[in-house]
């Protein structure tokens, strides 16, 4: 295997590009694709301040590393989710990454600040854990970005993530979600701009980027996510991709180019509508009187904590 660019020995093949790359040119490809996404979707400028949502996993740490390498003003926010040893190790990986590079890392700990954690919130609200987790993270990233004056929140969603979410939303024709599945969501009153600079890169590429850059990310999977629908969609898409390389890219970018506008009438989703009033508890725009996060907080804060194994699985599960 030889690098497509320099003909030196390659370290990775990317089947959807039908090409192999050495380490140097692979890293250049990742940087170029990130820059291309930022420019193509007008995500942000080098003058703006970006808050990167970091989890300790490969995508968010790679994104933070890339933005800094590319000369953007990027700080991080880590949310302690309280998923046992998994969260402890995620936090350690994130703090070590920031400290080694002298980067600014903000932290919010759900248990310390709000008296709940994700496993307890899932049980108290009868939501699946990923739903309680996502709701908490979205609210707290939004709040932190606005409080600290950031221009945008950047997340590490990659092409595989977006294709899997699109697959799930399409299976059920969830038009309000389809309308909002964009690489950039503009800022609105009460909500910061949200951007996904890694949408042109697959998750194997992000893991490879971390290995080649020496980024020590947390490899273990979240114990609460095991067996969720999203992972099932990814596996299904990977089987399609194996038979027809480039399918995921064609699916997602074809949707952006030719289909997403058809769902515009279905936006906005849920309680972030234009006719929203301020949440009576926290003040964020909502159409429900009390926003979804504060409703979760009302049930989960102070609830009997769910006991976890050392790996972070609920003991009674």
């Amino acid at each position: 295997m030889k690098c497509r660019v320099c003909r030196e020995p390659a370290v990775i093949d990317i089947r959807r590009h039908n090409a192999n790359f050495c380490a140097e040119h692979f890293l250049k490809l990742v940087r170029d694709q990130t820059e291309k996404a930022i420019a193509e979707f007008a995500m942000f400028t080098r003058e703006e301040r970006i808050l990167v949502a970091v989890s300790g996993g490969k995508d968010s740490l790679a994104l933070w590393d890339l933005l800094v390498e590319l000369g953007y003003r990027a700080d991080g926010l880590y949310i302690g989710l309280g998923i046992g040893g998994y969260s402890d190790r995620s936090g350690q990986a994130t703090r070590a990454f920031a400290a080694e590079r002298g980067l600014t890392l903000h932290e919010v700990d759900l248990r310390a600040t709000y008296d709940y954690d994700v496993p307890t919130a899932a049980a108290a609200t009868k939501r699946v854990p990923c739903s309680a987790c996502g709701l908490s993270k979205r609210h707290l990233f939004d709040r932190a970005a606005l409080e600290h004056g950031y221009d945008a929140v950047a997340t590490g969603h990659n092409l595989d993530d977006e294709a899997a979410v699109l697959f799930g939303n399409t299976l059920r024709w969830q038009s309000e979600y389809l309308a909002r599945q964009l690489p950039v969501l503009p800022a609105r009153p009460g909500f910061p701009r949200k951007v996904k600079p890694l949408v042109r890169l697959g998750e194997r590429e992000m893991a490879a980027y971390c290995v080649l850059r020496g980024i020590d990310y947390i490899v273990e999977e979240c114990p609460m996510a095991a067996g969720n629908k999203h992972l099932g969609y990814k596996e299904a898409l990977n089987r399609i991709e194996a038979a027809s390389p480039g399918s995921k890219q064609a699916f997602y970018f074809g949707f952006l180019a030719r289909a997403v506008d058809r769902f515009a009438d279905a936006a906005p989703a849920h309680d972030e509508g234009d006719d929203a009033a301020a949440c009576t508890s926290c003040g964020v725009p909502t159409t429900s009187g009390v926003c979804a996060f504060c409703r979760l907080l009302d049930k989960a804060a102070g609830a009997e904590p769910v006991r976890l194994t050392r790996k972070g699985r609920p003991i009674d599960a």
Partner: protein
Amino acid sequence: MQVNLRNPNRTLTVPGPMRLTSLLGRLEIDREAVLVIRGGTLVPGDALLEDDDEVEIRPVISGGAA
């Protein structure tokens, strides 16, 4: 060779030499779903793995979804 698998962590001993593609085929692992790492760097798909090699097969699929 020693093969270290992740999520869950376990170790296998497989006789070498063997092509990486053959190893993944033998273990029924989709090579698009993993990286193979030897000595801290990536191993390309056509690499020959020696009997005294130690490699890590690291899954790349991750993520919860809200």
